[in-house]
């Protein structure tokens, strides 16, 4: 197998990691129209919860479901307790709160679970495929991410609750007039994003290994992926994540030194914001003034 195919397949595998977290970023954006910088750390924390449950003897999928549920509740609580009081504050306040949350979650995880790298079980066979460029687990991650995408799509498209959440995010005042409890919809959005993040964390932990800094690097790439695909489009975010994963490998191998891989992700973010702020598939935000 040539290096090119290997690099592309490896890129798809890492891209799937970015895609799953990008999905959580899109989720929170859809629900609240803001980008949560603590999303990665919340996902990391959820993964530690899953790890604790697995250590306690729960079978993998039971721990997985329970973690998703706990994370959902945790997300709702964070919105109610921390985000709600600053809801009407300027965007900068939100950014600072999110960054504070990021640092706090990271430090608390380190304090509780220590910084020693922990292995995390995978529900999928770890057999290397295609000459080791990708493993059974990587394929599993891609499938789970796609399944999650379908679920979210269906949820927002076909359920009344999904519709209400979209309405609350896009036009809170009219939504309120239509009898939607906007505040609770925002909290639900946080809960859902935390749940999606938990799935992402549990899926990537066997690849990246679990430690408190597991998600700090991923967040930036996921952000690049989400922006590339369009921060308002779940499908776009998944595709964007995969594209970033592959391009990052190809650029790092053939064009520039691997020192600049991270810069590539940042260059993506800037390029997209300058040329097409809505991303490849995002809707263009039109605000009536």
């Amino acid at each position, binding site marked *: 197998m040539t290096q090119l195919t290997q690099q592309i397949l490896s890129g798809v595998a890492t891209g799937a990691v970015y895609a799953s977290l990008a999905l959580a970023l899109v989720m929170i954006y859809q629900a609240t129209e803001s980008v949560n910088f603590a999303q990665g750390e919340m996902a990391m924390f959820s993964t530690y919860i899953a790890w604790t449950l697995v250590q306690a003897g729960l079978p993998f999928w039971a721990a997985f479901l329970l973690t998703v549920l706990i994370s959902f509740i945790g997300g709702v609580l964070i919105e109610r307790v921390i985000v709600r009081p600053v809801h009407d504050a300027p965007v900068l306040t939100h950014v600072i709160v999110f960054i504070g949350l990021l640092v706090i979650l990271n430090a608390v995880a380190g304090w509780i679970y220590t910084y*020693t790298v922990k292995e995390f079980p995978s529900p999928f066979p*770890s057999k290397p495929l295609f000459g080791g460029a990708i493993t059974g687990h990587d394929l599993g991650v891609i499938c789970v991410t796609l399944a999650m995408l379908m679920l979210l799509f269906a949820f927002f498209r076909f359920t009344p609750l999904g519709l209400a959440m979209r309405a609350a995010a896009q036009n809170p005042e009219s939504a309120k007039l239509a009898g939607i409890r906007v505040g609770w919809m925002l909290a639900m959005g946080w809960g859902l994003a935390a749940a999606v993040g938990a799935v992402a964390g549990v899926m990537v932990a066997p690849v990246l290994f679990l430690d408190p800094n597991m998600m700090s690097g991923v967040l930036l790439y996921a952000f690049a992926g989400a922006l590339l695909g369009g921060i308002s489009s779940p499908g776009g975010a998944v595709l964007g994540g995969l594209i970033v994963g592959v391009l990052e490998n190809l650029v790092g191998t053939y064009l520039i030194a691997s020192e600049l891989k*991270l810069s590539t992700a940042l260059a993506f973010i800037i390029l997209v914001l300058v040329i097409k702020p809505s991303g490849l598939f995002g809707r263009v935000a039109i605000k009536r003034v």
Partner: protein
Amino acid sequence: MNFDRRILLIAACVVAVGAVAFVLLGPQKQPGPPVVQKKYGPGASDTEIKIGNINPYSGPASAYGAIGKAIGAYFDKVNDEGGINGRKIKYVTLDDAYSPPKAVEQVRRLVEQDQVLLVFQSLGTPSNSAIQPYMNENKVPQLFVATGATKWNDPKNFPWTMGWQPNYQTEAQIYARYIVSNVKEPKIAVLFQNDDYGKDYLDGLKQGLGNDAAKLIVATKSYETSDPTVDSQVVALMNSGANVFVNVATPKFASQAIRKVADLGWKPLHILNNVSTSVSAVLKPAGLEKAVDIVTSAYHKDPTDPQWQNAKEYKDWLAWMQKYNPNADLASTFNVYAYSVAQTLVQVLKQCGNDLTRENVMKQAANLKNLEMPMLLPGIKINTGPNDFAPIKQMQLQKFDGTTWRLFGTALSVEGS
């Protein structure tokens, strides 16, 4: 009038008591007529030795904070057992958040406000570089710094600074020698972390290979600590056609590389840096079967390695951990490191006897002879001298057999390299 007289009387009593107290207690700080010759520098007295420390308890390197805590836990044990020559250790440890300016600020506080006898195990190359001039100008021992950089063994220019662990460059030179003498036509690929630590190793490797370095090293790839994985780098290194893979990565990335090398079906001589030799934290996450035949070098025992766990040395360590450091990770080599380096300091202070001046502390630190530590590998001896400020200069090569590291050869000295 009566009233005033009473106040006067009380005041006089207070002054008198104060004067008596001063006469009785004050002069004791100075060495009086020598019954036993006692000499004290700042921070030392008949009952106490004050030791300062800075560690990153917060910030990006806060994982290392475990070392600072474990050192404190060891001093607790020493104090419970009566202290050193009857004196209790007072350990003052401050957070520098791995930030050099903060390190300088905290160390000044330790020296000027807390008046410590010495600063012990200040952690990190950047922080130690920042405080080194201050420590040497003020002639305060900067003892057994917690970094593997090469520059701490420089008694001529920095007579108050001393390292402890073997440095990265000399470790890399050991690998270079091993590669050249064990691999026919070696073609070496190196994965390294893109910072001083990674570059120190790369330089050491090049030095060890000598003039052939440019020819023998066929590929190098670096990673940033913010990279989620190093898969792409490993794929590129394999495709360079190398038959030797030198893995200069911190634990998480080292695990990823070990797994990727095995998944790719690449079978090079795999050399792993000493930073990432933990069986439980590095090899197990990657998969023990994928780590078979990896070669590395070590100087202390791995607490998760079954071969040590029945010996008294390990059981003593375990007992200390359980009693004094119960919340710490039993699998972390940081706790072995802290235990051993604290024991080294205790030995230095014992040797100081009743002459606890800063001069004598440095003199005794530079006077360690064939000191063996329970949790260092058998055969590793600590030696220092007036011109030798590198306490541990030996490392032992070892190969992973699927469950445990197997030592082979003898402890290799890297002196004079």
